[in-house]
């Protein structure tokens, strides 16, 4: 019975993992990069690199809100929506924007943005059109080019399979504590198994947490039935009741002057004396139906939707407060989302999240490679590899080496594509997928060790090209970032240098491995002859 149980668990682990491993690698890879979403977007907009972090950030928030509202009154008094984004530790920019009137057939209004230096309040040139880190964030659960709902269902199924693979993995790993620190190098598929085990075990709490909370973030799409049963109008009504701050009111045409922002801010600071305001939105300014929403940053609290307040813009009256009357389950759901997104993380925790994410990528990658390697080792000398094995090997090379290649190409495209290009942000994304396609073609031609080596050299080349192209096309480079202590930009450039070095190591390792194989093949007949002689 025991042996059967272990066997069935091993079978489940292998097939559940193998079926979705490439999609999971994409999800993990994009998710891991998304932990640095804001930092990557900052790197992608070199026009804003002159802006430095302001001193006394919190003390200046009241003055910044008043200044932005004053500017918006002059520029777009009739606009249906104003948005003010205050500088944050991860993003030094101070931005305000207003909605342009909707054109016929347009679903969402286009916003005109103004970027300011928070220290001087001087307007700076708008950055180039790019998606930056936001592309990876959406890729993580929307997969691009696929209908959003279908993509999210696919991601959910992959996460469910991942959760099953994690649980069965723990069950079948009999020596989980005994082999915790063991890695046996140069032992063929044994080494791959060790690498798979170590990368899984070292961040096991993270892997379980991120997969479970990932499923929870999309739970209302997968399992909407309780909400549909309880609420007459289904999910929308539930969400409206849970966050009344987001409830929409009918726009009225009756003009009413916008109340002084100080009246609203005084109430916010009375309720929350250390308030760190993140966004400040005003709808229908100068009308009777005007609403002002104030969103506070969460700091280190494990909550995704921090405190937020909704005021009437014409009277200054507090209409709703977010999170005040939440039930235990609403709080639980919110904290699960917070754990998954990691928006709460300080630089130390963000790097630890990133490290665990990389461990997750390594766990999936080693799992895929190990399956193919074991099957190939079992082949008899004259036996040809089957279609399944060839398919897995091709997909392995295309995905595991293709995604880093596409990512580095995406970064290079940001610097090299002409600034005046139409739909520039989409063209950057196109470069990402074209680069991935190129690596897939390379994998289809052959997925031999030599091809892996070529892919490693190509990856090293593009990784080293990122800081080089950045130095040639912008005013900074990784040494100047180090000297001026622009750590965000330095870390991105230096990250690519480290990745490039790792790919060189991989290329060298593959070269020695293929040399060993070819020498062995060459020596074998001679040895046989000697034995026969």
């Amino acid at each position: 019975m025991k042996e059967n149980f272990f066997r069935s668990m091993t079978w489940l682990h292998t097939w559940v993992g193998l079926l979705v491993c490439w999609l999971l690698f994409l999800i993990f890879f994009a998710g891991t990069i998304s932990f640095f979403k804001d930092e990557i977007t900052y790197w992608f907009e070199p026009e804003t690199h002159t802006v430095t972090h302001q001193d006394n950030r919190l003390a200046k928030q009241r003055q910044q809100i008043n200044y932005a509202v004053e500017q918006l009154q002059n520029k777009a008094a009739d606009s249906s929506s104003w948005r003010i984004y205050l500088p944050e530790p991860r993003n030094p920019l101070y931005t305000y924007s207003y909605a342009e009137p909707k054109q016929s057939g347009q679903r969402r209004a286009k916003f005109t943005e103004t970027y300011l230096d928070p220290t001087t309040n001087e307007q700076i040139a708008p950055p180039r059109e790019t998606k930056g880190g936001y592309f990876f964030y959406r890729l993580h659960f929307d997969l691009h080019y696929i209908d959003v709902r279908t993509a999210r269902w696919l991601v959910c199924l992959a996460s469910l399979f991942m959760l099953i693979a994690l649980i069965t993995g723990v069950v079948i790993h009999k020596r989980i504590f005994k082999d915790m620190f063991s890695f046996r190098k140069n032992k063929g598929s044994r080494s791959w198994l060790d690498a798979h085990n170590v990368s899984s075990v070292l961040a096991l709490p993270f892997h379980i947490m991120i997969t479970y909370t990932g499923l929870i973030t999309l739970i209302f799409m997968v399992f909407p039935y309780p909400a549909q049963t309880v609420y007459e109008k289904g999910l929308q009504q539930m969400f409206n009741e849970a966050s009344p701050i987001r409830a929409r009111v009918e726009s009225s045409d009756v003009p009413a002057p916008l109340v002084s922002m100080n009246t609203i801010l005084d109430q916010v600071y009375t309720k929350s004396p250390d308030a760190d305001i993140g966004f400040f939105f005003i709808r229908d300014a100068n009308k009777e139906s005007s609403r002002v929403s104030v969103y506070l940053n969460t700091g280190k609290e494990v909550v995704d939707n921090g405190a937020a307040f909704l005021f009437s813009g014409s009277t200054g009256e507090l209409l709703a407060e977010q999170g005040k009357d939440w039930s235990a389950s609403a709080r639980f759901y919110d904290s699960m989302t917070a754990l998954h997104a990691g928006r709460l993380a300080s630089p130390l925790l963000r790097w630890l999240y990133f490290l665990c994410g990389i461990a997750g990528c390594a766990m999936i990658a080693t799992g895929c490679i190990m399956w193919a390697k074991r099957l190939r080792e079992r082949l008899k000398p004259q036996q040809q590899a089957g279609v399944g094995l060839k398919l897995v090997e091709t997909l392995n090379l295309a995905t595991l080496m293709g995604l880093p290649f596409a990512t580095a190409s995406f970064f290079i495209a940001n610097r090299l594509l002409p600034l005046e290009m139409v739909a520039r942000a989409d063209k950057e994304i196109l470069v990402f997928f074209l680069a991935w396609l190129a690596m897939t073609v390379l994998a289809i031609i052959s997925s031999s060790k030599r091809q892996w080596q070529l892919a490693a050299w190509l990856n090293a080349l593009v990784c080293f090209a990122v800081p080089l192209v950045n130095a040639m096309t912008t005013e900074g480079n990784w040494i100047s970032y180090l000297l001026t202590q622009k750590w965000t930009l330095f870390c991105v450039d230096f990250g690519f240098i480290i990745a490039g070095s790792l790919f060189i190591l991989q290329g060298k390792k593959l070269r020695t491995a293929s040399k060993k194989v070819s020498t062995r093949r060459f020596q074998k007949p001679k040895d046989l002859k000697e034995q026969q002689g």
Partner: protein
Amino acid sequence: MMELLQFSLCFMAFNCFALAKFNHFREVFKKKLTDKQRHSFLATGWITILLSLVLSVLSEGGYGALLFCGYMALSVLMLMILYSFTVSWVKHISILNLSILLLSCFSVMIF
């Protein structure tokens, strides 16, 4: 400094767990691990890991628990590299770990 203390404790705990294994102990000290030593390593490991968890949660609540998970991952990764590739460094790194632990402990107590 508090974070450094929490991480040092976590690293020390996993180092003790590694040394409580016969193969790793033999590789580091070139002699056989006795039962008494094994129990001491395990006890020290459990005390320090719990101390690290308690300190993390006491100082930062839920956020501290997240940090603790990260410390565990980083410690196991560092120790795996250490024991698999540069086992001769284990003694030096253990002394460095202990020194950092004491220094961070003193600075947390003083400031």
